[in-house]
């Protein structure tokens, strides 16, 4: 088990290196650089060149990348070109807002979709199931920036119940962005819950449980849901991992001061260090959460724990294959 965790952590390193190199080099392809944006409009070519020299932009991209990497390995994400703060402080200033919004959305999604998915599975084939599934596929098909605008129109502009943007009003300003992000998550999770529950509902052990007189509520909550939990946790894990990077549009609709807007603003300003830094942090967060979810499986499902414990080299390969098949 320990060796497995260690292996996963070590495997993260090349992925993060690859991501940083990829993003750094792609951004370097972009026409124009920070010097164009920073220089005053009437700057001469020489002045711009001097500015490039000062920012270190005139050297080859790989040289700059390796310097960047060297600093990164020492925990330094570099300085922003455009504002006098370090990338780290720009990121940490915005990240809590995005995390707060993301967590609220996941909670909203889990709270609504588990009951809905179980309900649909229990009434499989009836109109109740049909309506739940129509709701889910509608949620899945709605572009979330549009949903955000509609919610804003109704609850902020027409009814005036909630603020239309910003993060200044505490919980009240959290509600609309949460529903906006949470709806898409809810849709996916409802469908997963339903199909996973349906797989379990047909199993013999549920019939056995009912036959020995266990109440329906206990059958569903204890016997069925527990066994249906693995795919549900996988989806919740992916959602949790994605919260840092997945709120860009909603943040821009609701002027929410988070990482997504920071990335867009920095992209527009050609502020490469901030963009690269934020994406590396987002990716790292994503990978670490996914790793954590994989470990949680072991606690939820003793069968998987047993697998870890008895894993020889061959077993490890097999697990890889299974994962690929799931993906």
């Amino acid at each position: 088990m320990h060796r497995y965790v260690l292996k996963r952590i070590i495997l993260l390193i090349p992925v993060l290196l690859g991501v940083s190199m990829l993003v750094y080099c792609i951004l370097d392809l972009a026409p124009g650089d920070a010097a164009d944006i920073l220089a005053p409009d009437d700057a001469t070519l020489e002045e711009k060149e001097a500015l490039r020299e000062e920012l270190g932009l005139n050297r080859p991209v790989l040289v700059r990348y390796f310097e960047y990497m060297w600093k990164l390995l020492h925990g330094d994400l570099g300085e922003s070109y455009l504002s006098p703060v370090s990338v780290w402080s720009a990121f940490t200033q915005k990240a809590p807002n995005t995390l707060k919004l993301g967590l609220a959305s996941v909670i909203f999604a889990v709270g609504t979709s588990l009951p809905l998915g179980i309900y649909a599975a229990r009434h499989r084939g009836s109109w109740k199931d049909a309506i739940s599934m129509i709701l889910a596929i509608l949620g899945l098909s709605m572009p979330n920036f549009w949903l955000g605008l509609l919610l804003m129109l109704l609850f902020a502009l027409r009814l005036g119940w909630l603020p239309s943007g910003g993060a200044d009003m505490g919980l009240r300003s959290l509600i609309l962005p949460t529903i906006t992000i949470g709806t898409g998550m809810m849709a996916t999770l409802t469908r997963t819950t339903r199909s996973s529950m349906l797989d379990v509902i047909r199993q013999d052990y549920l019939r056995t449980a009912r036959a020995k007189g266990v109440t329906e509520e206990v059958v569903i909550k204890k016997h069925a849901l527990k066994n249906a939990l693995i795919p549900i946790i996988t989806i919740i894990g992916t959602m949790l991992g994605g919260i840092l990077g997945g709120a860009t549009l909603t943040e821009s609709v609701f002027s929410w001061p988070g990482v997504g807007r920071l990335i867009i603003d920095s992209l527009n300003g050609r502020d490469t260090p901030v963009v690269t830094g934020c994406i590396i942090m987002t990716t790292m967060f994503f990978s670490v959460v996914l790793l954590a979810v994989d470990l949680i499986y072991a606690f939820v499902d003793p069968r998987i724990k047993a697998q870890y414990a008895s894993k020889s080299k061959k077993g490890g390969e097999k697990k890889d294959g299974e994962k690929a098949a799931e993906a």
Partner: protein
Amino acid sequence: MAKKQQKPKLDANGERKQRSQFGEAWHRMKKDKGAMLGLAVVSILVLVAILSNFLLDYDTDVVGMNTKERLQSPNAKHLLGTDEYGRDILFRILYGSRYSLSVGLVAVAIALVAGVTLGAIAGYKGGAVEEVIMRLTDIFSSVPNMLMALVVVSALGQSMLNLMIAIGVTSIPQFVRITRATVLTVRNQEYVESARAIGLSTPKIIISHILPNSLSPIIVQTTLRVASAIISASSLSFLGLGIPAPNPEWGSMLSGGRKFIRDYPYMTLYPGLAIMITVLSLNLLGDGLRDALDPKLKN
């Protein structure tokens, strides 16, 4: 793919009607109302996208300004109203289907070709080749799709082709994974071994023996990916990084209408509705295809 057959249908002579694998799937899908609705709407949309080029004049109907009729609420002459330049919103939405559908299709075509090729090679070859391809896939897919597309499109510059490339490139990993996984399941079947035994070349084996037998999940994934590519395209346009104004891309229409949302909400309502209907019908179709092509998965 197991050719799992439902109750055999007998014809007058008591013989079972023979159908190909896809004939069988079509037969199953015909009974799925959602899927047929999706298919019908998608067909209509394709037709609209093709015809709008002939029925609407781009310069006058789609981007031409007409300040006398600006900001009209939906009425008999302009069924969905007009925008701040007096352009008819219905015409713009109809014409906009060309952008959404073509970006969706081309982006997914890029991802399909690249992803299926890489996935098939990884799955069939195994070993170091597979390791390299899959690790690169990991790197690509560990950046959230939307962020990756944002980065690519802002590096390449704002144009329709670049939008297609950005969305296509970010959708490659899913195709690599799904193709590799299905190829792994058919790679060791006897018919592949016999193809190898009679000395067929590797590309020939992959193209004519392995891929046709791993098609179903790829078809389903393609349909669902077109839907999400359309959402990504309109999202990027909404952020001002997609198809530049004044082209009537649905996402940029939404973003333009946003300034007027308080007084003229129909300007944001209808383009979003168009996106939703398109994506919804593709999702319905994709779900139906999945159930029809692989009845084992159906609940």
